């Protein structure tokens, strides 16, 4: 039997955030908002959820005059993402096998 897909990651916005963060060292809120095409409010909620799960680290600080939020994926987040992708691949392989038989 397959492991269930990580429900925290199996959400369009959160998966998009994690996929972006896996490719960069760190990224700020504006970058994530533009790339995911979501609203600031929505993105905040998803970032909080990922942060609470320990998948990302969030740093909030004042840069000059404007507040900035910078996110970085944690080792736990990398493990969760890799495990998610592996489970996804297993699902796809089994689905393909099922279609053949």
């Amino acid at each position, binding site marked *: 039997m397959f492991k269930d897909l990580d429900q925290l990651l199996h959400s369009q916005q959160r*998966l998009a955030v994690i996929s*972006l963060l896996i*490719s960069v060292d760190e990224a700020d809120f504006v970058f994530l908002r533009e790339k995911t095409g979501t609203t600031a409010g*929505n993105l905040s909620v998803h970032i909080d959820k990922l942060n609470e799960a320990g998948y990302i680290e969030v740093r909030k600080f004042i840069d000059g005059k404007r507040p900035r939020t910078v996110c970085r994926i944690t080792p736990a987040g990398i493990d969760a993402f890799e495990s998610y992708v592996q489970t996804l691949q297993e699902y*796809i392989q089994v689905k393909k096998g099922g279609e053949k038989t």
Partner: protein
Amino acid sequence: MKTMEKVFDEQESLKLITDMISQARERFQQRNGNGIILWGYSIMALALANFVLLQTLAGECKTYAYMVWLCSIPLFAAHYIYEVRTAKAKEHAGNYIDKMIGYVWAASFVTNLILVASVFILACVVLREYQGWTMFLVINPAIMSAVGLCLFINGQLCRFRPFVYGAVVFWAGALASALVMMVCGDQSMQFIILALCMILGFIIPGHMLNRKTGQDV
């Protein structure tokens, strides 16, 4: 606040991951060559100024020709301010490769600084009585080799071939700088070689990179 959670299947999930990773990579490819162009023109100008001064000044005054390199200090400060300002203006997403490239250039800068300081100590203090000035002939080839190394790593990391060719130009230039004394017996020719290397290794590849990414100084 309640968020909209879209249910999506495994195919959509994989597509989303691929799209996001390629978007992050796209941003990484949008680097510009302004910094390298700035250094290219500046060092070329300083090298030519050094050459002209060596040709025009006479006797003991020739030593002052090398003072032009002190201009590289405010240049370094200007470049640093430019980098900090543009980094602030841009959206922030630090890339591992950008960081690596930065570290390589910073390490090379420190290495070159130590090299120049060591040459000065050896030439002016330790070997003063034994034609210590000949130590200065090592500076150009050594720095050019180090710049070649940085350009090569930079070119390979960001997959931009003109930087790799630029590295080859610098390595050839370093060798030529060492041989030039043997051929024409004139140290000032080292600065003409340096200026040529700056054009071929920094300025042209820098403009090519800007043309590729649609930016220009």
